[in-house]
């Protein structure tokens, strides 16, 4: 187990690299979902405003 985390001495480079990539992967998902939620809310707002006009 210890060997695995040690990565043959390269732990200080390997794990940050994986961490950065994982962060980018997760952030992309978060941004995409947020963008979609925002667009849907915006579209709903536009529809409501139009609905108010006779």
């Amino acid at each position, binding site marked *: 187990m210890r060997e*695995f985390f*040690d*990565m*043959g*001495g*390269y732990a200080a*480079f*390997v794990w*940050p*690299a*994986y961490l*950065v*990539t994982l962060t*980018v*992967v997760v*952030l*992309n*998902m978060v*941004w*995409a*979902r947020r*963008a*979609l939620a*925002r*667009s*849907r809310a*915006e*579209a*709903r707002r536009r*529809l409501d405003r*139009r609905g108010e006009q006779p």
Partner: protein
Amino acid sequence: MKWTWLHRLASPPYVYALAARLTPWFAWPAALLIAAGLWGGLVLAPADYQQGDGFRIIYVHAPSGWLSLMVYTIMGVAAAVGLIWRIKVAHAVAASCAPIGASFTFAALVTGALWGEPMWGTYWEWDPRLTSELILLFLYLGYMGLRAGIDDTQRADRASALLAVVGVVNVPIIHYSVTWWNSLHQAPSVMRLGRPTMPPTMLLPLLLMLLGFTLYFVALLLMRLRSEVLARERSASWIREAVSA
């Protein structure tokens, strides 16, 4: 040959619904492939005889780099389609690609630097690959900056599409000139692993990661595409149904 399916791809409501349906079909396989790739790359693959366990960075660096370039190409092609045939959905695809591509270019640069320090003794090397990645990042930033600088969505679409097409045409030229420049000044220092071909235990996880990242990109694209399509639509009829779901 019926081309109706192609025509339907230009229809925003169709694309919106299709994207919603297809997303899980890409997201879940992507997650599986990436998990399998990580397991294979971090646990099963043997250490490289030259770089030890440090070579395992390739399992995140290569997919990031691959994505950065593939996404830019897709962005350029979508932009061209949008320009030539004036299809809003194509512009929406291009707009969706940019932030994804830019962030993975950043990841490629950072993982490349982290790979470089133990291998070359320096965080940064002006080798063709890293230099080209850096230039690619600026190409993405320029595209996103241009989009941000134009308020009208249609104008922003057309202007940034022009830029994307010019960029895609230039990428081979830029890469060639950077490789040429690099070969003048030093021996080519490519991040090659100890031998010309990788053994299957090393190669297979890499392929899994590459494929997994690609599928993940498609899932992301489909998600972002829906928001971009919504933003470009004014007609109420199909939107009402779509967003109240």
